């Protein structure tokens, strides 16, 4: 069963020390970045200690449990690749929350946008599968486009009709769940599934499936590139400046000649497009077809990741990787220790809590603590 005979080296998880995205300038930036790195490290240690207590209470040696978790996620042959495979869509759904959050828009529609991209991407990759990698590429494009269309709807409703994005994204999650399910018991249902009635599309031909290059899944590589691109866009380009300005002071953005409505729509389209791409990649790289269960909780996990990453696109990579490690290792943890996999949710909650408690920074750094705020959402407006 082991696809890779050479076990990937157990490189330690990347330091999840997100830097502040904005150009705060020389020393100050370094200190702030450094400080939040330390805070996060301490937060992680505290979280693991709390988790250890929970595990101990289950009658399991915490050290053994953590060792198992890490081993199962990183060391076991093929595990590292699988972890990266799990990380890829999480990075993208994380970015789907991060980009609009920069404008103060809270996208909780990752679930739906992901599903939309997945179903259309899977179908196109199947139809165009004969063309090999081109088919895969087409599938991704279609995934982006359909995700972005969902975002377009949300953005237009928000910008031009004043419909709160939290409402519209929640509603669209339900609507898309219905539509995608209908698609796979109706028009897009695979021929082979029709007799058995299983709700799924035809499998994507081998040639159009996304594999791994040297143990690194192609989907993961794409996600990382996009996270870096997202960070670059936000911190270095005029488009990013527009995003940040609208988020920081809408009135000033209008005064500065930034077309606010269009930026709002664009941010939703970009975010949702990335979630849609995540769906297409997941279909092409992991499940090799669409079935409704493909979404799982990836969209909602994206919220967790965006918040862990403090709305910094680069930091979504370590944040998603952390979640990926926990989720990959969970099954092995149950297999080896009998601890139910839900322990992972508890661990995640504790980590997010610890990482985001501002008092932790204040306790550690006294009055010199950085003022951290993810982004002020325009909740009420």
């Amino acid at each position, binding site marked *: 069963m082991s696809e890779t005979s050479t076990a990937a080296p157990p490189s330690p998880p990347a330091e999840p020390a997100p830097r502040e995205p904005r150009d705060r300038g020389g020393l100050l930036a370094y200190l702030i970045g450094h400080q939040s790195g330390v805070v996060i490290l301490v937060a992680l240690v505290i979280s693991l200690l709390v988790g250890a207590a929970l595990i101990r209470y289950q009658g399991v040696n915490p050290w053994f449990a953590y060792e198992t978790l890490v081993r199962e996620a990183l060391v076991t042959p093929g595990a590292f690749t699988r972890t990266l495979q799990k990380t890829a869509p999480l990075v993208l759904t994380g970015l789907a929350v991060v980009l609009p959050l920069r404008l103060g828009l809270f996208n909780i529609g990752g679930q739906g946008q992901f599903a939309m991209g997945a179903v259309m991407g899977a179908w196109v990759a199947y139809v165009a599968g004969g063309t090999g990698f081109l088919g895969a590429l087409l599938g991704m494009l279609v995934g982006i486009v359909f995700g972005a269309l969902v975002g377009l709807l949300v953005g237009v409703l928000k910008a031009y009709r004043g419909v709160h994005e939290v409402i519209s994204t929640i509603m669209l999650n339900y609507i898309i769940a219905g539509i995608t399910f209908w698609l796979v018991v109706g028009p897009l249902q695979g021929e082979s599934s029709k007799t058995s009635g299983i709700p799924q599309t035809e499998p994507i031909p081998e040639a159009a499936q996304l594999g791994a290059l040297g143990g690194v899944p192609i989907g993961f590589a794409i996600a990382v590139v996009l996270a870096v691109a997202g960070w670059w866009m936000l911190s270095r380009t005029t488009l990013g400046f527009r995003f940040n300005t609208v988020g920081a002071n809408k009135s000033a953005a209008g005064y500065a*000649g930034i077309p606010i409505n269009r930026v709002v729509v664009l941010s939703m389209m970009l975010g949702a497009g990335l979630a849609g791409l995540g769906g297409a990649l997941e279909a092409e790289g992991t499940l090799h077809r669409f079935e409704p269960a493909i979404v799982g909780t990836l969209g909602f996990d994206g919220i967790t990741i965006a918040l862990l990453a403090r709305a910094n696109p680069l930091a979504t990579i370590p944040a998603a990787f952390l979640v990926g490690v926990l989720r990959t290792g969970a099954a092995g943890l149950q297999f080896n220790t009998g601890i139910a996999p839900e322990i992972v949710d508890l661990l995640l909650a504790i980590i997010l809590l610890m990482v985001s408690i501002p008092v932790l920074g204040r306790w550690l750094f006294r009055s010199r603590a950085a003022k951290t705020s993810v982004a002020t959402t325009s909740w009420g407006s």
Partner: protein
Amino acid sequence: MSDPTPTEGTPRPVGHDTSQEHLASVVTNEAILGLPPEQSGFGEGNVGEVLLDVQGLSKSFGAVHANRDISLSVRRGEIVALLGENGAGKSTLVNQIFGLITPDSGTVSVKGDTAPIKDPRDAIRRGIGMVHQHFQLVPVMTVAENMMLGHESTRGGGFLDVDSARTMVRELSARFGLAVDPDAVVEDLPVGTQQRVEILKALSRKVDLLILDEPTAVLTPQETDELLGVMRELADSGTSIVFITHKLREVLAVADRVYVLRQGAVVGEVATAATDARGLATMMVGREVVLSIDKATATPGAPVLEIEDLHVQDDRGLVAVNGFSLTVRAGEIVGVAGVEGNGQRELVEALAGMRKVVSGTMRLGDLDLTTADPHRTHHAGVGHIPEDREKHGIVSSYSIADNLVLNEYDQEPFARGGVRQFDAIRENAETLREEFDIRSSGVMQTAGSLSGGNKQKVVVAREMAFKPRLLMAAQPTRGVDVGSIEFIHRRIVEARDAGAAVLLVSAELDEVLSLADRIAVVHGGAVVAEMDGRDADRTEIGRLMAGDH
């Protein structure tokens, strides 16, 4: 906690009239300067009793020493003014007295009680009332609701008694001659009226000490005079007042004594009777300040801005600009004088492309800007110093450098191919910081941490740096200290001399009178009179502004 209508002092049969009377002649300070402080008729042996005593007060924000070892005292019935440049620490000082900020060291005692003032609640209980530099009104609530907040009149276990609140508003409003409608929603009111509500709110509780932090910054001359009258009246009945303003005229008109702050420390204390505007300004800034601008006679060139029969609506969809026509030529400053709320704000926003035009045209040279957005307007060569700098002018969380390219961010050399060029942005900022004397620790400091005057300088620098053909300056020196006013005025004149057309909109009649080459008086959204700046008459303009034509 919930006194319904606070009864205050004893009724004063004549106080009202006298104050109005001496305010009518406020234009020249001399009349007031002669008023000795102790002369007023507050009796009952309170003369000289120290009501507020501040000893050794210090407060730092990180590296900024906002207050250093400040000591001062205010006697009963006395009006004490605090003067100082932007960022001198005036607001910090009074916020500590009101319990909003906890001092690092030092004591504040009120009526001999030296226990620390924990919070505003505590301050209110001890008889302190305050009008804050920034409005402390809930915008979506009515005047009555705002006035009763914190000391609500209720009946039957917590149910609001709105009627008695209305009555209270009407009574107070009648007593102090400050008209407000108790049922109006605050956000719909013009700023001047909002300020009136603030003042009445402070007066609605029984106060021994009233703190007024720049209450006149948003008031028209008439409204200011009304307020000064109220202050005098209150002081006469025994209320002590701490009064912060940047306008020396007001200080000289109403205060008994003045404390001058510089960089967080008291640098001088003087009785108003013993000084004049020039002396105060010098104490404040530490150097001679030129209070009047000497500018050469304008040499107007070709028309730059031509506005014809413009109609614009306000936020609520009501007509605000109603058939406005005006021409501004190159090399001249045209001042728009008028009571606030006569469509000036909507006019400027329409010109800047931020507000839709209902009908009429506006042209910049050959360009029709009637339907242009802010982006196009800016690139057509229009510089715009907005009225509300916190809302429109700056992004507080951004660095000074970013704020200095706020509307040029996507232009060469600050961006190339959609990629921002940080070296160029920083260089630009260093140059402008130097040229416009923006006091900060560096160009990467966040704009939000600057003092008001320096924020304004950031905006002025940005809007002047690109050498606009037309410069629109809306209330350019509001809330700015005299030193900065002098500076900004000089830059505006320099821009004119360099050939720019300047449209100056100001509620500050003095500002218009001293700067403008030509004056257009607006009333009801239209120009009611135009005159040459040199032979403009203050009283005449005041009459026109009030709609008397």
